[in-house]
């Protein structure tokens, strides 16, 4: 068989090359061919495209992100740490053989990723083609969410800034008046039209400018969510039906649930059509005419005629249920979201809570002044995601004896990670001592979530930690909630670790800063 591999390591002068040598030797011994790209410090020679195309399987033996990994999309993949390649080259080659045979036996599993091999472009999906159905549904959703987040960030922060500016320039009514700005108004509305009337000296007009741009960005949330769910399912053919379907969903008021539905309908329609066997003459026009035409028509019609109304009803129901939550129920919601955020620190459960909050922002979109449950949910989720690393950081500061030296170093980085709402900052601690750390992070996050709900702090930005505190409603109480949650996490983890006497100096934590990615 023919294989390609990429090896890489943090320093790039030793393990990268040892792994490459080991793989080459092992492949040769087993009678296979392999070409290895060493992404090390001595510069890397990219593998020729035709070599990749001819490979039966791909091996990543890498401790740092593989550069330009989309080149390998659609190939059976074996992914391990760099040391595995050095210590067990023959075993890894055997795994690659198994992966290649598995793929040859079930070509449809990889077909989704390979549907448009030449058009992979720079866009990446979070889809692992070997995962089970449940995992893949989550990966499709997360691909959509990850492409939506920049629009949420740009729109949310611009709108929050516009409200702040409007409050300064226009007084108490400013934040309510600013939503009247638009780009198309005529007649009685003409003075709100920024395209025709923009006064450089008017603070309200500047606030309006930020609002109009932010609202435009928010207008893309559902279409982008839908489009990139479809993209994750069907690759490039999914984008047109997904985005058009999502736009229709947004227009009908079916919200993000409608967008999720059109993402799936669009993706699977495009996938189904692109897999049809067609005569040679038609094949050339399939990707440019037939697939987009048919899949977009089917997706749009399905939403308008069948799915739209029930989804709108569900969406309206959910929104009014959320907005109707008050007092105790709201606090309970805060506790549940907090427990979820603290449970797996950036894993799937955490992401469900986070997605719930950001899509809630999308629903609340450009609606008037601050307030409303979705904004409180966002604030609660962010607070709950900040306390786990902060709590660990505080614990390593006040009781360093309970932690190993690598953990104490992680603790110093965790201050910044926590403050920036990167829950993953607590992962090194949880990896070293799962249940004590997770119990403590869930406790603190639940308290933080509940307190934010109780205090009624609101947040329009989907991310940012303390850097967006100026945009938060009731910021001091928000910070108080975080402080209390942090102290709870610290107290619980210190108590659990002290009673267990795990002052074992050999506790080894996973590398911290190198693996921490934003919680998105």
């Amino acid at each position, binding site marked *: 068989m023919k294989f390609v591999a990429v090896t890489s390591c*943090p320093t790039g002068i*030793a393990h990268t090359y040892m792994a490459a040598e080991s793989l080459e030797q092992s492949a040769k011994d087993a009678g296979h061919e392999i070409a290895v790209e060493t992404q090390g410090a001595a510069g890397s020679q990219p593998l020729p495209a035709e070599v990749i195309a001819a490979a039966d399987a791909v091996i990543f033996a890498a401790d740092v992100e593989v550069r330009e990994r989309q080149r390998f999309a659609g190939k059976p993949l074996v992914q391990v740490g760099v040391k595995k390649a050095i210590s067990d080259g023959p075993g890894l080659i055997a795994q690659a053989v198994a992966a290649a045979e598995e793929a040859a036996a079930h070509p449809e599993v990889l077909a989704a990723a390979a549907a448009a091999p030449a058009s992979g472009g720079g866009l990446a999906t979070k889809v692992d083609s070997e995962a089970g159905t449940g995992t893949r549904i989550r990966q499709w959703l997360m691909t959509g969410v990850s492409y939506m987040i920049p629009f949420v960030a740009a729109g949310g922060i611009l709108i929050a800034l516009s409200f702040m500016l409007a409050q300064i320039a226009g007084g108490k009514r400013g934040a309510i008046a600013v939503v009247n700005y638009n780009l198309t108004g005529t007649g009685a509305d003409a003075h709100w039209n920024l395209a025709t009337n923009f006064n450089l000296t008017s603070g309200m007009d500047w606030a309006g400018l930020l609002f109009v741009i932010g609202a435009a960005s928010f207008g893309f949330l559902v279409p982008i969510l839908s489009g990139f769910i479809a993209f994750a399912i069907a690759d490039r053919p999914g984008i047109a039906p997904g985005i058009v379907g999502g736009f229709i969903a947004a227009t009908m008021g079916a919200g993000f649930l409608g967008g999720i539905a059109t993402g799936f309908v669009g993706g699977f329609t495009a996938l189904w059509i692109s897999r049809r066997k067609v005569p040679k003459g038609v094949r050339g026009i399939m990707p440019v005419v037939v697939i987009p035409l048919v899949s977009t028509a089917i997706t749009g019609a399905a939403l308008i005629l069948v799915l739209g109304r029930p989804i709108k009803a569900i969406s309206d129901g959910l929104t009014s249920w959320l907005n109707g939550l008050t007092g105790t129920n709201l606090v309970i919601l805060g506790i549940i979201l907090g427990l979820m955020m603290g449970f797996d620190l950036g894993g799937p459960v955490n992401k469900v809570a986070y997605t719930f909050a950001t899509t809630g922002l999308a629903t609340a979109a450009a609606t008037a002044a601050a307030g409303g449950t979705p904004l409180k949910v966002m604030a609660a989720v962010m607070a709950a995601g900040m306390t786990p690393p902060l709590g660990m950081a505080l614990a390593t500061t006040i009781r360093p004896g309970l932690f190993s030296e690598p953990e104490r170093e992680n603790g110093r980085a965790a201050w910044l990670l926590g403050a920036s709402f990167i829950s993953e900052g607590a992962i090194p601690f949880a990896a070293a001592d799962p249940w004590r750390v997770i119990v403590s992070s869930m406790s603190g996050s639940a308290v933080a979530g509940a307190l934010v709900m109780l205090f009624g702090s609101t947040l329009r930005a989907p991310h940012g930690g303390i850097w967006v505190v100026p945009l938060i409603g009731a910021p001091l109480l928000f910070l108080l909630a975080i402080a209390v949650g942090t102290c709870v996490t610290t107290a619980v983890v210190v108590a659990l670790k002290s009673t267990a006497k795990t002052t074992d100096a050999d506790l080894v934590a996973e590398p911290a800063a190198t693996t921490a990615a934003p919680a998105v």
Partner: protein
Amino acid sequence: MALITDKLVVLDLEAPDRHAATRILAEALDSEGRVTDLDGFLADVRKREEQMPTGLPGGIGIPHARSAHVTEPSLVFGRTAGIDFGAEDGPATLIFLIAAPEGGGEEHLAILAKLARRLVRPDFRQSLHDAPDSAAVVDIVTREVVNQ
């Protein structure tokens, strides 16, 4: 300047743990004027070591770093009765301290890459085990890595 000289070979390395062993090897670099700040360099090596231990199967430890305190790409070789470098299959008997300058030139890094590739080969390791003296070690490394 050569990657390794007989001053950079320690055939009877004795140390209580890997950090002490690394320090002894790094002191050889210091006395040859290949590092500007011994403690700074050791801190860089330690930082790498703490990301993940550098012990490897086959009795090998490769503490290494790219560091601003290194002036010449260098290899210090140490042979010991066994010091734990965190490998799964037991202590390391061959220790290679690899020092690369922060902005090292391509050509030097390519030599280090070749060295790393040789380390995986059992016959290369065996020849280092069997080397009778420092000069023999320098010969082997120069023949296998530098002049190829």
